[in-house]
């Protein structure tokens, strides 16, 4: 094949151009830290990358939702815990009141404490997280006990017993409030009856009988259930505890997923620096070689030798 100067020079230019292209690509990969910069570089990597980004953003959001779940469940647990210990104090006071050694003056004092405790329990039922009353179902603007001390009714507030749920993962939701309307209602009724009993002037024996303190079999007991109320509070606390556990498990899962997705995303689109720098160095030396060879080839023609 006949080869001319113009072929040599155009070939040289083409080779230089190719090696510049290569170096530009490596440089872009090194500068941006990504192996692709547009979908056509590698459609599969691009589309996967878009998916991973969505996964990561979702993960971040779910973790944020977890914070909300935590604060609601913690507040619920706290409130129920306090209610439980207050009920124990009520038990002590009942036993004390059932004793005939107390005068009516003493019972008056016990009653005063009972009234305060009743108030406190209502306050507990009106616990708030931020601007939200957490025991009022979806009617989070309304306290469970109104200012006059009466409880809200489901006919006024349609959402009183409704669950509030947040999403903790794709398709997985978790109820963050706890339905305790009936429980607080029962406690409040009990406390009201207790007050009435204490102010009725009944004797210690009568009080003991009606409250079932004196006998174990419950004969003569007319005011039911301090013990069952305490049990119910405990049961609710157990429910909240289980939810807290679930939140923690979910949180761990989300953190694990975050690590995994980040790793996959990095593997998918991040530049392998060691490899790329090596390739860059190779491309550079090839480029230098073609430059020096090119300069030598084109230097001389026959003109230089004809005299």
């Amino acid at each position, binding site marked *: 094949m006949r080869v001319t100067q113009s072929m040599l020079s155009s070939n040289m230019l083409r080779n230089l151009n190719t090696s510049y292209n290569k170096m530009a690509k490596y440089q872009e990969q090194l500068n941006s830290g990504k192996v692709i910069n547009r979908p056509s570089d590698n459609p599969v990597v691009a589309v996967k990358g878009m998916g991973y980004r969505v996964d990561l953003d979702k993960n971040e*959001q779910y973790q944020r939702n977890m914070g909300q779940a935590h604060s609601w469940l913690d507040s619920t647990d706290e409130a129920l815990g306090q209610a439980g210990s207050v009920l124990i104090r009520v038990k002590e006071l009942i036993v004390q009141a059932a004793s005939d050694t107390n005068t009516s003056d003493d019972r008056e004092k016990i009653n005063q404490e009972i009234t305060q405790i009743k108030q406190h329990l209502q306050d507990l039922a009106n616990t708030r997280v931020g601007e939200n009353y957490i025991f009022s179902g979806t009617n989070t603007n309304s306290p469970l006990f109104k200012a006059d001390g009466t409880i809200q009714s489901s006919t006024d507030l349609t959402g009183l017993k409704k669950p509030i749920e947040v999403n903790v993962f794709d398709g997985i939701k978790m109820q963050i409030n706890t339905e305790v309307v009936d429980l607080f209602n029962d406690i409040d009724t009990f406390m009201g009856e207790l007050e009435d009993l204490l102010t009725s002037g009944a004797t210690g024996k009568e009080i003991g009988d009606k409250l079932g303190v004196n006998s174990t079999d419950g004969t003569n007991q007319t005011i039911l259930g301090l013990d069952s109320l305490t049990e119910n509070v405990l049961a609710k606390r157990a429910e909240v505890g289980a939810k807290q556990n679930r939140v923690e498990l979910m949180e761990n899962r989300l953190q694990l997923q975050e690590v995994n997705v980040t790793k996959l995303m990095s593997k998918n689109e991040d530049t392998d620096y060691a490899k790329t720098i090596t390739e860059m160095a190779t491309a550079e030396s090839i480029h230098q070689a073609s430059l020096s060879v090119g300069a030598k080839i084109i230097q001389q023609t026959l003109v230089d030798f004809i005299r």
Partner: protein
Amino acid sequence: MRSTFMGLEASKRGLFTQQSALYTTGHNISNANTLGYSRQRVNMETTPGFPSPGLNTGKSAGHIGTGVQAHSVQRIRDEFVDRQYRQETNKLGYWQSTTQSISQMEDIMSEPSEFGINQAFTEFWKSMEDVVADPKDTAARQVMISKGQSLAESFNYMDTQLKQIQGNIGNEINVVTSEVNSLLKQIADINKQVQAIEPNGYMPNDLYDARDVLLDKLNDIIPVSISYEKSGGAALAIAEGSMTITFKPADGSPAIDLVKGKDFATIQTTDTADKAIDGNVDDPLTNSYFEFGEISINGIGGATAKVNYDQLESSKGKLAALIDAFGHSGGQGIYPEMLSKLDELASTFIEKFNNIHMSGSIDGTGNAAFDLNGNPGEAFFTGTTARDMKVVDGIRPEDLAVSDTPHEEGNNKNIRELAKLQSTVIGELQGGTFQTFYKSLIGELGVKGQQAATLEYNSTTIRLQIENNRASHNSVSLDEEMTNMITFQQAYNANARMITVIDETLDKIINGMGRAGL
């Protein structure tokens, strides 16, 4: 009986012929870097021998040579390689232009990235999840409205930008069409000159070269076939004649002459409304363009022809690539397809989102969406396309229908439905979610872009190969020309010496003979 001065004549011819060859060498060297130049050589041939036959011719040994003459000057060119080169140029023109169209689209869509529609969707979803966590928080609700606006604006931006590029492509179609017309005219002009020169027995080599360069350029834009028509008169057998350029419709319809002799056709690329495609907005209401309709050809001798999309050879020539990008045949083409997919995505999202926001169910048949004041939810987005998608003007944070029951400010049932929409499979969108549908658009674009880039690279490589092949035939080698220069110079010198020798012999006869004894 031979002539006394025959030798002088023969050597004089030698001088002139070698001189012509030397000049041609000079021409070659001068044009070593001229685009499309083919090296030329002087075809030398011997002049008729002596004596010529005849009744009265004396008997002598013959033929004695009478010297040399330059028969013709010819360019060195391989028509077969030229043909290959043009075929590959067709493909390269197509893929180069397609790669560019797609890469511009990729620039606008800018995926994968931390901005763009995909991210806007995710951000909007996140803002909804924040409302889920705290349904009556005005700040969270306000953020959700803003994120909704930014999603709508992302769609608006894509639509505007894609249409702008589409307009630029329309404009390029216009430019390329005029370029074709200019090339056809120039080729016809050269034909005219060739027709004037060839009958005189000359070879217009430089005109041939210029014509071939124009033909290469034309083939970059549209694939054409060529044939030659010999000139009459004393035209040499090796003269190429005038070039006839024809366009062969891909469906086998009769070929259309674009250039024939000094006549040429003009073409116009028109849209479906029979108006020239010029890149100006055709429908200001939707800011869109009418798609490609046909190429109308004002042919030679008043003949007219129309070439529609199906008659264009696929994947050949820049014009076809531009038309493929610009749009043709009822919404086909790279840009119209992407635009309509975006419209589809936007309109489906607007519809489904509004359904849930207004009724609590995706098909719009419910009554479970209420705002903070206990009123039923109203539309959140307006519009039906990517262009006019917009969050309803004046929507306030309390207007978001977050609850499924009136007057339950902590109820987040409906906002959860809205947030769920993002990951809901929608039958209308090829059974994907909004984001996977969009992702598949990007994937498809990427695959198309990759294919175009690969084919462009392949065509470039093949064409380079062919270009080298062609250069191997016709490009000027300076070393070769130097060698020729020496050859012709020495031959010239030798001819001159020959004349001196003959002069000396004549001197002997004229001045030296018949002077015996003087």
